[in-house]
């Protein structure tokens, strides 16, 4: 299915809950409201015309110092979907404020979301509500803060042993 048609189908189903859509050199992106993201993901997976059976990646963007986006919602959670049946792709995004950095978990839809969301929690400190085991994935439990946030000091070191340089 053509990317434009995928976006049209999403808009047809979710109407104004699809806040934005982009088409940049064949990459198609839809931004949805937080309350809709889980329904949108489920629709993408289950609709026979879309059939996005594979969650390729969940990641996030910290827009704290992103030119032109400093004043908007701080975090952007990004879902990359792929359909092995139709060989097409889609990117879904949801924006959240720093004080309320929560999104519903997608572990019920794709089991792989478990680890991908743990990584986003580890690196960006975005909580996934309903996640069965939201622990750090890569860093150690003693680590304080979330290193991929743009306000994490670049020189800060938190060694388990050895000097605190």
């Amino acid at each position: 299915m053509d990317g434009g048609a995928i976006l049209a189908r999403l808009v047809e189903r979710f109407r104004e809950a699809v806040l934005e859509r982009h088409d940049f050199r064949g990459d198609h992106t839809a931004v949805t409201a937080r309350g809709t993201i889980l329904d949108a993901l489920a629709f993408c997976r289950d609709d026979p015309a879309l059939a996005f059976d594979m969650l390729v990646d969940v990641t996030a963007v910290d827009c704290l110092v992103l030119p032109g986006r400093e004043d908007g919602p701080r975090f952007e959670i990004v879902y990359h979907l792929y359909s092995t049946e139709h060989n097409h792709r889609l990117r879904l995004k949801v924006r959240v404020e720093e004080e309320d950095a929560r999104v519903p978990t997608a572990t019920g839809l794709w089991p792989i979301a478990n680890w991908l969301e743990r990584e986003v929690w580890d690196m960006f400190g975005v909580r996934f509500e309903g996640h069965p085991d939201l622990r750090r994935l890569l860093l150690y439990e003693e680590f304080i803060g979330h290193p991929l946030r743009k306000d994490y000091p670049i020189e800060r070191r938190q060694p388990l042993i050895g000097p605190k340089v």
Partner: protein
Amino acid sequence: MGVGAFFTGKLDEAIGWARKYSIFQYPFVTACCGMEYMATACSHYDVDRFGAGLPRFSPRQADVLFVVGTISHKMAPVLKRIYDQMCEPKWVVAFGVCTCTGGFYNNYATVQGIDTIIPVDVYIPGCPPRPESVIDGLMKLQDKIAAGAQRF
């Protein structure tokens, strides 16, 4: 020099000579330097002629700890523990710039040189070091083993 000191000196030399040709390494391989380590360990470069051809995959049976690749802060306690498990006499080789100084990984995750955690005898810089550099480092380690006072 008394006769006793003469024999002790000769015994030290003999033990040093034996030890420098029986280097049983423990390769602590964590990253891409491991490929170059494998290249060095293969027949083309023949480290067997230095008596270093048999890596032991247990720290309790090894003399030399080869730390090959980036060490993260999460891995650091494991490295320290491996070092503590080795029997004396023991030596440590820092293989590649990441183990020497942290290399270009100056970030929240990476140990800035393993000498902040354990003592290091020989540093082999390079990203990764060529087998020739590794052999050079190995020969420097041999000299160090042979020249040092032998405890037994």
